[in-house]
């Protein structure tokens, strides 16, 4: 059975100054799958994610989301597509001035005309999906990092999006909270039939949640496949990365690119 493509990248290139960050990236992401983009720090995976979400415009290439070339859309048209997105940021990016409830309610208040009582019910529901109760009136600075991630996740799914992007969802969390976040990503994808695009270099997380994995190295896709295909890959770069070895083709001490963002 042929799978529906929801995001399609074709020949995406991006340079910052004289640094070629994304080199001719082409890949398809299917509807309903959890697609993980992994790679070393500085490999270009976060730039790739920001390119897909529209925060960065590529120099060349085509980017289709739900069969629309988003690079040809004006801001208003692109905003319509963005309403079907949700994104969990690396540091949650909750608005400090708002309470937890107001943060989760923000996209609903801005894009719907629902009554306040209904919005409050939706917020409670979304927060309970991520396992948070009785924290609605706290501010983001009053809760822990793991809780902030869960609030960020509740906000990301507030408008029942088709696609949720995750930028390093488990970084900076203890192993138990990281496992909770992984489970949430998996559960939400199944329960809400969401397509998930996850950028991470947390290998434990990658093999737990991924339906398919793409590995990026120095701005290029060097491997793409299911977790078992990646684990069996003959590519030395992939093997060094997934096994976390110091010795290998990626010479950390020689390759100064790795220190750059």
């Amino acid at each position: 059975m042929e799978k529906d493509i929801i995001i399609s990248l074709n020949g995406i290139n991006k340079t910052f100054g004289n640094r070629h960050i994304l080199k001719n990236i082409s890949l398809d992401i299917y509807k309903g799958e959890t697609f993980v983009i992994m790679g070393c720090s500085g490999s270009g995976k976060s730039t790739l994610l920001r390119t897909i979400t529209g925060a960065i415009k590529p120099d060349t290439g085509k980017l289709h989301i739900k069969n629309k070339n988003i690079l040809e859309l004006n801001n208003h048209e692109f905003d319509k597509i963005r309403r079907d997105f949700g994104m969990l940021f690396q540091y949650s990016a909750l608005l400090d001035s708002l309470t937890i409830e107001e943060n989760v309610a923000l996209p609903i208040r801005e894009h719907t005309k629902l009554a306040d009582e209904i919005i409050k019910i939706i917020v409670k529901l979304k927060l309970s999906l991520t396992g948070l109760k009785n924290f609605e009136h706290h501010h983001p600075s009053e809760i822990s990092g793991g809780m902030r991630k869960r609030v960020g996740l509740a906000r990301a799914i507030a408008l029942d999006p088709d696609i949720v992007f995750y930028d390093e969802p488990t970084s900076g969390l203890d192993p138990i909270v990281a496992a909770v976040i992984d489970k949430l990503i998996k559960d939400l994808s199944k329960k809400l039939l969401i397509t998930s695009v996850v950028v991470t270099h947390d290998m434990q997380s990658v093999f737990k949640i991924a339906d398919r994995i793409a590995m990026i190295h120095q701005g290029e896709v060097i491997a793409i496949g299911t977790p078992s295909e990646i684990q069996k890959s003959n590519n030395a770069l992939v093997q060094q990365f997934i096994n976390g070895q110091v010795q290998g083709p990626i010479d950390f001490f020689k390759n100064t690119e790795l220190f750059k963002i």
Partner: protein
Amino acid sequence: MVSGIGAFTISCLKETAQVLKLLREILYWIFIAPFKGKPLKIKLIFDQMIFSGWHSTLIVFFVTMFTGIVLAMQAAYQLEKMGALMYVASLVAVSLCRELSPVLTALVVGGRVGSAIAAELGTMKVSEQIEALETMAINPVKFLAVPRFIALFFMLPVLTIFGDAAGIFGGYLMGVHSLKINPALYTQITFKFLLLKDIYTGLAKSFVFAMIIALIGCRQGLNTRGGAEGVGKATTNSVVLSFIFIILADCIITGIFYFSNM
């Protein structure tokens, strides 16, 4: 040296173009977008009015009141020699309403509110909160800049009138209690020489100053780069640029009023 001046001029022109682009965007969200089904959020504007207006009243009161006192003393120093001490009242009132109250209030609000806008928006920029808004299809200019712009546009003139009153009150305290001018005479001379157009010209200035503070604060904040250091720079720049442009605008507007006999 010449190339340095050229580069500086180009960067100034580019920055001006960006500020004007921000103004155009703000005006779009105020005057056009509401008719396209994207209304302004009154609560956000009200919150900003409380912050920029109500919370600035105390500092504006003290600054203008003490300026009124100082102005009365300095005026008395000269007018006493000419036996025209009672005209301290009119000098204090007119110079406060036409010049000192609008400028001092704008500088106080520029330092207090303009810096807060730049710091808050700058922190939001470097901590991905602005990007988060964009990803949620919420326009940061509409959500953040417009409420601050509208709040300042209405609250700065209100604060200026409050400053006028506080300054005149300061002058009255000095004139009546220290310079021993008859209270009724002081009041009479104040309102005899203070014309409505003196207050209008001061208010006209404060509308322009409000736009300067809001635009520079928002532009610096939304354009912040480079973490905590960037936020510090944005905050400093917003205060320095606001002060320069407030004084420059004051000079131009006063010139226009003077040469058109207003």
